[in-house]
């Protein structure tokens, strides 16, 4: 009996050690909740709001930033508006589009129509894209979401926005959007939700498109930081060009999230 007690105690201590490390040795990140169906009145949407919806889907339900980020898994899309024209004329282009909008639609639904050099599936010699059709599978964007993403890509990628808000679906339409996020409690969660690290070096992420924010609190006060989030075009940081940062955060962030982020940035010294 003494041996049963000994080995049981030993096993419990080992299990307790693993449990303790998993609970207290690593940060507890809450995975996003499943996307929910939510009603959206397309009839009252402006184009800016439609683009903002595209941005939300791009960073949320679409899972686009899983690969289209600075990690190099897939091409960056910040200049997609201008490079699309070159790709349409590329001899390796296998699609049927002849406009930027058409090219983007094709890239989202038939990604292998053009594979950017070095980004093909291994062994395919860049003839096959590893990207899934975003209208199917786990992503499953519908026509409205697809149009919103294209509008966002055109807007953020330096092209004229030619997409129109789908007429057929105007009025009350069921559209699943982004994640039903729980109430955020920390600045890190806000940074993760809005994918700030995609462009900025912040909170362990190393985006290089925007200014490095690891010690931004040294030189900028809270008012400046708040303004930069709500109206990024008001003052452009030295060495960076305008029009890069989305102008949607004023609409998307709630007051609590904004203040969490501003206070966090101001404390980075």
């Amino acid at each position, binding site marked *: 009996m003494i041996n049963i007690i000994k080995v049981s105690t030993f096993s419990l201590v080992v299990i307790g050690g693993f449990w303790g490390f998993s609970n207290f040795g690593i940060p507890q990140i*809450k995975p996003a909740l499943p996307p929910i169906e939510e009603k959206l009145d397309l009839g009252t949407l402006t184009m800016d709001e439609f683009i903002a919806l595209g941005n939300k889907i791009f960073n949320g339900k679409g899972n686009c930033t899983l690969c289209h980020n600075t990690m190099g898994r897939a091409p960056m899309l910040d200049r997609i508006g201008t490079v699309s024209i070159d790709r349409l004329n590329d001899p390796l282009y296998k699609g049927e589009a002849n406009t930027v909008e058409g090219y983007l639609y094709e890239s989202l639904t038939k990604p292998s129509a053009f594979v950017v050099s070095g980004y093909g599936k291994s062994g395919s010699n860049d003839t096959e894209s590893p990207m*899934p059709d975003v209208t199917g599978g786990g992503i499953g964007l519908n026509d409205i979401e697809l149009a919103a993403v294209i509008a966002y890509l055109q807007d953020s990628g330096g092209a004229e926005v030619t997409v129109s808000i789908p007429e057929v679906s105007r009025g009350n339409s069921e559209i699943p959007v982004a994640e039903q996020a729980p109430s955020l409690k920390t600045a890190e969660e806000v940074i993760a939700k809005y994918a700030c690290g995609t462009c900025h070096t912040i909170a362990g992420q190393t985006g290089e498109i925007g200014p490095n924010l690891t010690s931004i609190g040294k030189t900028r006060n809270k008012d400046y930081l708040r303004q930069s989030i709500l109206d990024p075009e008001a003052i452009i940081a030295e060495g960076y060009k305008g029009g890069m940062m989305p102008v949607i955060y004023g609409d998307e962030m709630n007051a609590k999230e904004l203040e969490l982020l501003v206070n966090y940035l101001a404390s980075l010294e």
Partner: protein
Amino acid sequence: MLTQNIRKVGRAFLLAVLVILILPTCPPSASASEVPASHASIPVAGATIGSTPTPDTKKATYPPAPKLTTADYPRITGVNSRVTVWLVAQLHLWFGAFVLAVPMFVFIIEAIGMATRDERYDSMAFEFMKVSIIAYSLTALLGGLLTFVLVLLYPDLFKYLATIFRGSMFAYALLFFAESAILYIYYYGWHWLQGGNKKWVHLTLGLLLNSVGCLLMFLANAWTTFMMSPAAVDAAGVFNGDTWAAIHNFLWNPINVHRVVANIAFGGSIIGAYAAFKFLSAKNNGERAHYDWIGYNANFIAIAALLPLPFAGYYLTAELYAYSQQMGITLMGGVFAWIFIIQAVLIGALFLSANYYLWCGMGRSEGAYRYNAKIKYIAIVLVAAFMVWFTPHTLVLTNAELKSLGGPYHEYLGVLGIMPAKNTAVNFLIIFTFISFMLYRRANKIPTVSWATTGNAIQIALFAVGLINITVLGVYYGYFTNTVYKVASSIPQVLTTLIIIISSTVVEAFMYKGAKEVAPLQWGRMSNRSQYALFLLAVAFTWLMGLMGYVRSSIRQHWHVSNVFRDNSPDAYTPDLGYAATIVSIGTILFMVMVIFIFWLSAINSRRTVVKEYWKHKHDQHH
């Protein structure tokens, strides 16, 4: 002659396993590997995912995947449906893995016993089966319970899967009966089927037992993998293939391979814990020697299967990426990325405890003093490799942490966080564990071949060149190429490790052929403390299997069946790692309680209580 026959049976067994594994990659239906991976995960309206549907005019029609609402999931007050199914399925899997793995190495041990005519092997093989036979009934009970809770708590999911797999469910039931019948004849006929042809019949029964056991596991795996990578279904979840198409889905073979290897390692570790328990409870030196010997062999089996396990893991993950890059990135780059830090701790614990046990085992040999001084260097390398593997890359930091760190990455340790550094570390871990094992094997032997010095030099050169190659590959790909090529070092590194292990084993085998023994091994000359290393191995394996089961299942996210059958239950969200660790810990405790109960049962089975004046003696009855 006998040895030749054993080889034949061994080859036949390997062939049977190979055929089972290779068959799925052959026609008739288009192999999943022929389907462009990116397309395999794309249900386009009216189109089919994965395998090409087999043309069949008489084909049964299948309903689409149900679109459930929260109200469609039966709720029982006080019962958490997900946790219940999770725990029961996990316990079933642990016991299933154990009872399927034990006959595999029992078959080999029995064959070795027949070849060497050393009865110790035969009695050890029987003792393994004795432990496994009690676990077998628990596996069946838990399997029944799993079916029950699935039907009770997730009736629509069960109905959907059972409809698709109806063709194989009947075969599954029949195979289960066959497995039981063969197992009972194999076990209860052990001492009856001894000597001459009878022994051959018995060994053949072992082969049959393993073949049926593997088939059972592969059929069960088909359900699991279909839920991850459904084949022959359209966007609405309508199945339009045959049973084989459903079974032979994209991830079926990678999981089969991974589970077979992992089961052997796991089974070995549980037997090791049994031997440790018996060693600690031994009443005399004879028993200590016996269970020390069993513990050594069980540890050998566990480690032999543990070494190739990372490669099977690579294969599974690569196939997962090939099937769906999105799923792969969710696994490796999303919230689950942290799980690999926990995994590093667990595997580090496994390697360190296995090495510790080997070093303690050198105490059995009089010749081990020659290698004692080297052990500390191996220990240093193992700990260093473990620390590199454990170093995280990107962390979400608080402001205070960021300040004290001076940036998002540590000035010196940050470079160790990337994958090539970890690949290098894990290859070092494997190679140095192998060196520990080699030293253990050499401890009691002195080579007699004339070229022993040259052979040693060849081996040293082999290890030196291999380790340099692994380091250079890791450094070059890790720090001098761009992100896309950073993991390109993994395959050549793994190949280098395999080449080192295989070549040095060949050299070792020839060099120590006919070697002199320093002195007879002193089995049983082991500290009690060393036995806890065997227990640590078993607990860590069990916990690790539970954890990886959680992540395998969670990468489906909010889908019962990936992309076609959505989970709309209140538990559709993915739980965080801390919560998962709690459930896995509860499961491991339940499993260990059952396992220790089994050990206790086997202990009381051999006890005899002599009572006087309780039973009537014959002459009393006559009176």
